[in-house]
């Protein structure tokens, strides 16, 4: 009886606090893949010393300003090469993005 009075009815002692950790996976950054580009068509006109008059005449007849922005044959090659490199970089970046997505989202390697 005395024991009960002294311990305030708490026979068995205080309950222990249990601390547990629950692993919650990081939220997915679920961006859609970038939308594909839609390129507009451009028309190349080759102008030589022989056809220059004819080309400008045709432009005027079609109601287009008779002015052309020209590049040499060598620069045309450089432009083609530059475009190819831009395209390759775009493809590489898109591929890397897909690979990252596949690695971190498909196999559950969320970090």
């Amino acid at each position, binding site marked *: 009886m005395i024991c009960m009075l002294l311990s305030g009815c708490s026979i068995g002692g205080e309950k222990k606090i249990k601390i547990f950790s629950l692993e919650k996976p990081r939220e997915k950054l679920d961006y859609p893949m970038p939308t594909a*580009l839609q390129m507009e068509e451009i028309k190349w*006109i*080759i102008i*030589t010393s022989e056809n220059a008059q004819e080309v400008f005449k045709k432009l005027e007849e079609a109601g287009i300003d008779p002015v052309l922005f020209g590049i040499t*044959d060598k620069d045309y090659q450089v432009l083609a090469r530059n475009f190819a490199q*831009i395209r*390759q970089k775009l493809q590489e970046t898109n591929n890397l993005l897909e*690979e990252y997505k596949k690695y971190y989202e498909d196999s559950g390697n969320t970090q």
Partner: protein
Amino acid sequence: MIFAVLIITGIAGAGMYVMKLRADNATLKANQIQLETAITEQNKVLEQQKEDFTAILESNKKLNVLINTFKKDLQDLDKRFTKKNRDIGKLAIDRTKSIERIINKGSANAARCIELASGAEHTEEELKATLKSEINPECPALANPNYVEHQ
């Protein structure tokens, strides 16, 4: 009296020893379970690591193939301009209209390559292309995945 005290102490001691053995046994059992769990978890981690390495190797391989394709595409592009000492400028003077057609076709093909590189869907025609005459020569591997170049 002393004898009785000794017997009681002995019994109590034996009881305590048995209780200690029981407690030790329970601890050992719990340890065993924990060790087994740890081993299972470690095995899982090792398996996951193995899978990850395989995935990384595969991904590296794919990217290396892609980079080699890029190099080849650029070489092919250079070849098209300089094949057999070709001078595109002189050709354009001699055959202005036909070179203009070729340049415009090439430009359209290159634009299509950029669309595909940015993630555009392939057309049925591109997927079916198996002959050299059917392919987009600006980026054969990208535009025509089913085309196999014969050396």
